[in-house]
């Protein structure tokens, strides 16, 4: 017998919380909702929703097929509300270790197919350093990416945060 219902959010079904302010500014808490951000974003735009020095959490609306991405360090992705396939290539030449954050890998990267993973809601995958990866999603899906601020990272706090 289960008397508890676990409530998750999705692109089409989310409810944003709120801040009951006593002193100071609401903007100090940089409060947004990842489903709202993904809903209003273009497919595969990498919108930063969390930043801690150079490290970021990005929200991505996965829809259709993405570009090939690569990175000199490990990154991690969690599917928050739907199904997404990630294909991997072992690159013949990987990004210089000094360069951090997600990079575009070009339209046809040189490398060997390593395989793929299929992520559903709540599934997490490692995007290993030195590989190229590409997302494919039949229906719009919200992804969470753990990485470092890079050339593709978008900041639009004023649009997404409670004030």
């Amino acid at each position, binding site marked *: 017998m289960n008397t508890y219902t676990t409530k*998750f*959010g999705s692109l089409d079904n989310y409810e944003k*919380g709120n801040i009951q302010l006593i002193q100071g500014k609401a903007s100090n808490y940089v409060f947004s909702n990842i489903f*709202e951000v993904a809903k209003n974003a273009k497919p595969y735009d990498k919108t930063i929703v969390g930043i801690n020095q150079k490290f970021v959490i990005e929200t991505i609306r996965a829809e259709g097929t993405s570009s090939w991405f690569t990175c000199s360090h490990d990154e991690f992705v969690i599917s928050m509300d739907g199904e997404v396939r990630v294909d991997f290539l072992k690159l013949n030449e990987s990004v210089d270790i000094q360069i951090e954050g997600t990079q575009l890998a070009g339209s046809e990267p040189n490398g060997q197919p390593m395989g793929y993973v299929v992520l559903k809601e709540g599934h997490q*995958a*490692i995007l290993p350093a030195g590989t190229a990866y590409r997302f494919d999603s039949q229906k719009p899906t919200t992804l969470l990416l753990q990485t470092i601020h890079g050339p593709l990272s978008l900041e639009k706090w004023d649009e997404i945060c409670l004030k």
Partner: protein
Amino acid sequence: MNSLNKNFASELVEVFDENALTGYKGFKLGNFLFSRDEYFAKITWTAKGQEHSHLMSVDAFLRAIMRDVAWGFFYGWVNFDHVIGTQNHYGSVDMYAGTFNGVLSAAGVDYVENFETPKIMATFKAILHDWVNEGFDPFAAPEETGSAFGRKNGSNVDAIDRYRISTKRMPGLNGDSPLRDDLPVNRHFHDVPQDEPLVHCERGFEGELSAFNVFKYMSRSDVTWNPSVTSVCKESLFCPTTEEYILPIIHGNDRVEWFLQFSDEITWDISDKNDGSPLARIIMKPGDICAMPANIRHQGYSTKRSLLLVWENATPDLPEKYASGELPPYPVNF
């Protein structure tokens, strides 16, 4: 898991009393005395030449000290309540009473003393060993466990023998921390899907790709309010945890951290880190993400067991940079 007895350093523990009536030992840590009775933990210190003391309900005290031990004193300030707590200096630890309470500190009746980490850790572990009775699990939510109250009645070594899981890259990878298939699904998470992702590796790349169901993993957590690492991107650590009832400590971090609510709802009480005055209450629902600035302390409330992602930046020099003002307490200015 590590044994609590490993590095127990019991020679560093000072017992000052064993009460014949209650059966509990009293412990001395520098100029602090810790004792308990049927209902309360009592902490005693001296300020302005007078004895001062503070009582906490013993269940709340044991839940708080359990987190401080399991987290190795964590990041920054671990306030057990509005009076007592610890500040981690990563090698040594301050124990304080009233120092971060606006009224007590202004009155000069507060007291703080610094201890080498092994000494305070050994004392706190000894307190847990002696004061946690059979049937009480200080890591569990109140509905899941027995009573902390009454006279000494056995012990619960298994319950206090649990630590933050350390992960090198991601659970389930070769040589890394394990998944939780051997733990049962918590009673509040029976509706959380338990399917694992499909991972297909081409020949020659076996083991190089990896994925797991992190919601399933969390649904099997056997503890509450215990951030445990599930992915490592250099110093960026994802530390998800399952939350129920009240965060047993009020955490004042020495750096910015972030929360992302994966499921259900948590209310956070936010107050000033130094004097404890209230600043805000934040209600987080699924998909909400927000920063905890470096100049606040926070305590969460979760009616239903919920899934929370705690995101930490473990870079070692951050505390000095926030303390000196080199870094602003707020992560983004917009």
